[in-house]
Every structure is written in C-alpha cells, then in structure tokens.
C-alpha cells in the first residue's frame, strides 16, 4: 500500500481541490468503473475468487450456527439470567450502526452539497444494505420459535391479536424495516442510470438482458433526469431524518427501560453519533483495500479518505462527549444505582471491555487531529479497525454490564458467550463480505453519473477549478 498519493499537493486555505485525481474525462470515468464489473465469469480476478471463497466459507459457518440454533433452541447461546439480552442484541445494534454511514453519505452529505461523496456513496450504500441485512438476521433468529417470527409484524391473524405498539421493540421493527426498504430504494434508484451504462456497454446477451431489466429502459432523457433529480433530492431529504430516527429508535429499546445505565435522555443522539462513527470506520476499512484492488485510486482519492477520517474524528469525539455526560449526570443526579452502574462499568468485572471501548472509540481517533495521520493509509486502516472493535464493545458494555448487575445484588451474574455466539458473530461477517464481493463484481461500484455531474467540464472554460496544481482565478487581492 502506498502511504500518500503523489497527486495530493499541499493546498492553500481557500482552495477547492478537484474531486478526482489526474486527467479524467467522462469516458475514462465510465471505463474505470465499468471494467470492474465487465470481465466475463471465466476471467474473474484470482484475488476476488480467493476472497469470495473465504467469505462464503464463513457464510457457511453462519448457516451451520443458525441451523444448530433452530434445531436445538436459544439455549445454545450464552443468554441466561440475568443477561437475557446477550450477544444477539449486541450484534444487532453493531450491524445496524454500521448501516448508517451509507445513507448518511448519500443523503446528508448530498443535502450539504459535499461533492466528494459521489466517489464513495455507492459503496457506502451497498454496505448499508448488507449491514442492515446482517442486523435484521439477529432479531429474526433470536425469537426462539422462528416460525412465529411473523408475530413481529402487525398481520391480521386467527388469534385476533395485535402487537403492542407502545413497545419500543415494535418501533424497532418499523424503523429497521423502513430503513432497509428506503435504503434499498435509494441505492437502486441511484444505480438505474449506471446500470443503463453497463447495459449499453454489455457485449454478451445475458448481461445485456440482465442489466436491461434492472435499468428499466433508462435512456438518460432529460425529462427523466429532471424528475429523477427531484425524486433523488426528496429521497435524500426523507432519508436524513430516517437515518437519525433508526438508531434513535434502537436507543429507545434501552432508554425507555428504568435499568441504570440505560435510562438516560442523551441516548438517541448519542447512538446516532456512534452509528455514523462505526459506519464511517467500516467504509474506510472496506474502501482502502477496494480502491487498491480495483484500481479506483483516481476516483477515490486520499482526500476522500481524509474527509471520512475527519468525520470519524468528529463523531468519535461526540461519542466521547456522551460517555462523559452519562458519567457526570450519573453522579449529579444522585441516584446511587446509576452511580454504581457507571463506576461498575469502569472498575467492575467488565472493566476490560469498558477500557477497550474507551481507548478504541475515544482515544484512537484523536490521532486524526494530525493531517499526517488522516492521510496515511496504514494509520487510518488501523484506527478504522480499532473503531469497529470499539463500537462492538460499546454495545457489549451497554447491554451486558447494566443487565448483569442491576438493583438487587442477589441477582447479579457474569455473562459469558458460548462458542455458538462467537461463531455466529464471525459468520455474520461472512454474510456481509459475500454480498459485498458480489456487489463489487457485478454492479457499478461508483456512482458514475454523479461523479460526472460533479466533474469540471473537460475542455470548457467555465470549469470550477482546473486540475490540481494549476493556477486559479485568485479572489485574493481584489482591489
């Protein structure tokens, strides 16, 4: 891995660096992106095949664990009194959190006109969808009698029973379900023009047919674009509050309870910040090897990664703020059970988990205050992986420490996962990476149309900025 892009020139304050590196035109963007998806099956790159073999093997492990769970019952997990919400909920919240970066990059950064997002949004959206699938798996399988999982939904049934709409667990069903649906629509809609590009470049009949069906006959007509852009803007405007709501609702699962360490009002924004944090870390974790492997360095530049690292720093610090506020108010509020819970987190039997969480989530990203660290591929990779680990432990700390030691010392306990817990978590990564590799191989990994729209127009004088290094119409001086 290279440590720094040669094109990353030191920019002066007030510069607008170009979004892409090197000489690019519309055709080269099309070519760079499409050639990843276009080789025939027989010419699949070896590295991809190896990765896919590994990921699908791990996916098989997940399948085996789920089968074992179904055939034997939830007793194969470590969930037992007093910790009935063990690893499954930790994994669920972890994956849902990961799934927040995609929609954030697509929607919120779109509304904020952050054009650098165009290079990575497709990637991040795909990641969102796969992460939400991994997340949805856990509530689905943890209900014990899985063939009754449809009880989660308000479906008229022969017992004339309806779910309890006053329960945050049902809100969760609606929030995660809506989120998965809207993310899918958003992802797919943004992809239609790019699928049309693949259709028009396809050489084999099968590909032409397949891409043809999914591109719905898109021609790039401006009358279509006009409505498409409005629809995309509306979807972005809808997805923005949605993305905030999803993790807020997940936080309600905990915060409406009166359990010390769960019942605190900052939970909704705190969870949302944590979700964005973990999602961005996962995007960096995936993007760094992917741009290397698929030759996307001109489109996904170090500047893109640097911008993401800044978001990681910001959200990591917000998470640190929430940890601090919780601690402070647990003392200020004067409820001895609350105070005990927080002291117990930091110095009790799970202190190891707590300090892993703090060092990974709050301390590690602080290196991103330095530009050197933000633009160094090895450092950002290490920090991003730390953050992934730290965010998993955050959910572990919240869930397990509060449950294992609540008000009554006689009912305290210590939670230990079983081998099935561990392999199920690992297996969920298999699901994630299998889907992700399939996406990279067959679908447009970069939103070509959006990148082109954000590019300076080649050969035209009205370009916002000439390519890097060039002179610019300097606004300084003025008089």
């Amino acid at each position, binding site marked *: 891995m290279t440590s720094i892009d040669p094109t990353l020139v030191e920019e002066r*304050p007030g510069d607008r660096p170009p979004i892409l590196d090197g000489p690019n035109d519309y055709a080269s963007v099309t070519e760079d992106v499409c050639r990843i998806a276009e080789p025939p099956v027989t010419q699949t790159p070896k590295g991809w095949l190896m990765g896919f073999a590994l990921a699908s093997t791990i996916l098989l492990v997940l399948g085996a664990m789920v089968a074992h769970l179904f055939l034997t019952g939830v007793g194969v997990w470590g969930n037992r009194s007093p910790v009935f919400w063990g690893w499954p909920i930790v994994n669920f919240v972890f994956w849902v959190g990961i799934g927040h970066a995609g929609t954030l990059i697509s929607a919120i950064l779109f509304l904020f006109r952050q054009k650098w997002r165009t290079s990575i949004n497709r990637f991040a959206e795909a990641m969102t969808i796969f992460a939400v699938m991994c997340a949805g798996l856990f509530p689905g399988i943890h209900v014990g009698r899985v063939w009754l999982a449809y009880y989660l939904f308000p479906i008229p049934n022969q017992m004339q029973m309806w779910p309890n709409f006053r329960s945050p667990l049902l809100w969760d069903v609606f929030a995660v379900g809506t989120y998965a649906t809207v993310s899918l629509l958003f992802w797919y809609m943004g992809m239609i023009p790019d699928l049309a590009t693949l259709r028009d470049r396809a050489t084999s009949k099968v590909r032409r047919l397949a891409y043809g069906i999914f591109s719905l006959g898109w021609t790039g007509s401006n009358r279509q674009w006009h409505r498409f852009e409005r629809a995309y803007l509306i979807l972005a405007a809808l997805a923005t509050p949605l993305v905030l709501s999803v993790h807020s609702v997940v936080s309600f699962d905990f915060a409406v309870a*009166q359990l010390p360490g769960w019942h*605190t009002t900052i939970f909704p924004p705190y969870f949302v910040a944590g979700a964005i944090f973990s999602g961005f870390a996962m995007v960096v974790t995936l993007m760094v090897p992917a741009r290397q492997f698929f030759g996307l360095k001109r489109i996904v530049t170090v500047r893109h990664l640097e911008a993401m690292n800044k978001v990681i720093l910001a959200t990591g610090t917000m998470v640190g703020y929430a940890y601090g506020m919780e601690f402070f108010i647990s003392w200020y509020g004067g409820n001895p059970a609350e105070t005990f819970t927080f002291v117990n987190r930091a110095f009790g039997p799970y202190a190891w988990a707590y300090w892993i969480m703090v060092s990974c989530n709050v301390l590690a990203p602080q290196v991103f205050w330095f530009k050197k660290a933000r633009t160094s591929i090895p450092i950002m990779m290490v920090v991003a992986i730390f953050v992934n680990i730290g965010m998993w432990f955050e959910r572990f700390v919240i869930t397990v420490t509060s449950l294992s030691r609540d008000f009554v010392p006689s009912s305290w306990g210590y939670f230990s996962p079983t081998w099935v817990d561990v392999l199920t978590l690992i297996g969920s990564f298999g699901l994630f990476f299998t889907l992700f590799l399939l996406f990279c191989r067959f679908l447009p990994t970069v939103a070509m149309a959006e990148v082109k729209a954000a590019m300076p127009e080649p050969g035209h004088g009205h370009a916002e900025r000439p390519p890097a290094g060039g002179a610019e119409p300097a606004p300084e001086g003025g008089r």
Partner: protein
Amino acid sequence: MQHSVDPSVIFGENRTLGPGRRKLMLGALGVGVVATAASIVLGLAGDGQRFQRAWLVSLAFFLTLSLGSLFFVAINHVTRAGWSIVVRRQAELFASLLPLLALLTLPVLVPLVLGSGELWIWNDHAWVEGHHHMHHKEGWLSMPFFVVRVAIYFAIWTRLARSFLRNSLAQDADGARVHTGRNQRLSAPALLLFALSVSFASFDLLMSLDPLWFSTIYGVYIFAGATLGCFAVLILTSMLLQRSGRLEHAITTDHYHDLGKFMFAFVVFWAYIAFSQFMLIWYGDLPEETRFFANRATGVWGDASYALLFGQFVVPFAGLLSRHVKRNKPALAFWAVWILVFHWLDMQWLVMPNELHEGVAQPALFHVLDVTCLLAVGGIWVAGYAWLARERSLVPERDPYLGESLAFKNV
C-alpha cells in the same frame, strides 16, 4: 456546477452600517439603559424573584443567539463552507457580543453572591439542608465554584469569538489567505470547547434552577434552540440590512433559501431532541425525572407546553416545508420572527416554572418585568452590535471563498 463570480463586485456595494450606525447605537443603548433601570426599580420595589428570573430569560435568549452565531462561524470554517461567506460577518459580530453578555450576567450573579436563593434555590442553605439528594453536590452547586465556572465559560467564548473576528477583520485589511487558514485550524478545537462549555453552562445557568432534576440531553437541547435562533436572526438582520440599502446584491434569494433550509432543519432537530427528552422521561415515569414536566403540565404552563409543541415545531414545520416559502422574503421573514418569538417562549418555559417549595403558586406566564428585561438586554445587545460593526465591512470582503458565495445557486 458552481461558477465563480468576480468577488470584487462586492466593492460596489454599500457594505457598512454607515451613517445610521450612531443613531442605532445610541437609540438601542438608550432603550437598554432605561429598561434596565426600570427593571431594577420594579424588581427592588416589587417582585425581586420575578426580576431575576425575567432577567435570566432575556439573558438566555440573547446568549443563545450569540452562542448559535459562534457555532455558525465555527462550523462553516470546519466544513470549508463557501455559500455562507456573505452572511458570516453578521454571525461573527453577534458572537463577539459574548463578553458584553458576560457583563449582563451581573444582575443575576450579584444577588447570588450576596446569598440570595430566589433564583438558584441551591444557594438557599436551609432548603439544601432539607434535601438529602443535594448533599453530595453541595460543592458543585456552591456560589464560589458556580461563579468561577460561569467566568470560565465566558472566557472561553470570548476568546474564540475574538479570534474568529480578529482573523476575519485582518483579512479584510490585507486579503491574506493565512487568516482563513488560522480560522479553519481554530474551528475544530473551538467546536470541542464549544460543546463542553455550552453543555455545562446550560446545566449551571438553567438546569440547576431545579437542582434535583437532571437530563443528559439538556446541553444538546439548548444547543438546538440556540442554532435555530441564530438562523432566524441571521435571516432577519440580512433582510433589515438589505432593506436599508446595504449588501443589496451580495445576499441573494439563494442564500435566503439555504438559511431557510437550515432553519427548517433545526426546527426538526429541536423537535427531535425535545421529543427524545420528553418521551424517555414520560415512558420511564420516574418521579425524580417527571418533576420537570409535571411542573409544566398544568395551568398556564401546560398551555405553554402545547404552544411550544405547535409553535416551535408543528406550525413552522408545515410553514417552512415548501421551497417557495423559503425563497419568498416576506414569508421567510414572518417565519424567522415566529421562530424568535417561540425561542423566547422556550427560554421562558425553561426558567419560570421551577417551583420547588410546596404550596407555592405557579408563576404567571407573562409579567411586565419580562418585557422590560427583554428590552434591557436586547437594547444593550443591539447597541453592542452597532458599536462592534463600526465602519467595518458587513461582509468578509476578501475571503477566498467570497466569489463562490456570491455565485451561489441553490439546487
């Protein structure tokens, strides 16, 4: 694709407060001083407690506007925003009023130092004695430490606001980009300091009015209201400046559209934070937490709660949804005024109904002191603005992003 406009067109603009400045400053100062005197007289002669509370409401109102402006400046630097340059100087000036607001804390801090527990009841030792839940935080909520903390908050804010304004003004003079670089570098740590100081300041100045109550989201709630108020005030001052023939071409419908979008976004954000706080407390139903809403659930304060729900969320949400409204100046001005009115009510709602002595009647919703105190703080605040603006440009006229901002077109 954003095109750039030659930024020197700005020099054709009427871009200082100019001749009207003296009149504005003296007029506002006159109103402020007279209202302050009237408030103090009314307070001493009649309801001293109401005076302190009303003063705190007015202080909180203008303090949040200035803090929101400080946030606006910092967040625009940290994101390298280009569109907002034409309105940034307003925010820089409002933020630089923070040291003035430090001075305006005296009417509530002096009684505190003199031992009054009328406003902050934790200063009433007899009351604290009777509440064992107070004993562990007696050191935290004690007069000397409290005053020291307030001084620290204002020191932080003053330092940040001064640095931003100084660099920006220096750029007006020499046009060097290094000033932009300085402000950008300052902005990230500034936001960190801002988050911590605003949170603890809101805990101290407002949340400790009911020292038995606590909510971790309180700082975020204050921040949401502050930023919302800041956008409303930016819209209104821009319009007033333009109406009086200043910056007529610099600020366009597209800038108003964007400010309107942000105002709309923060209406939603405020509602999100307020709902999170309310719903979790309502759902948990623990007496030590519900006391806050119980105090605001009956009588006129129950009506005020509903007024906030509709006035600060439902109605402006529906009103600001359409892009046509955000691009229509009179309509946007109406909503900006509306937001400010309800932001004031929000502060009133936070400060007034905190009756901790059993059997004491709820305070009235409105009182003549509320008006005089608002005029007092507001008059001095506006006078401070006019004094700060002096003959200075009302746009950062040599900012490197200015061309981009002038050419800004909304999607």
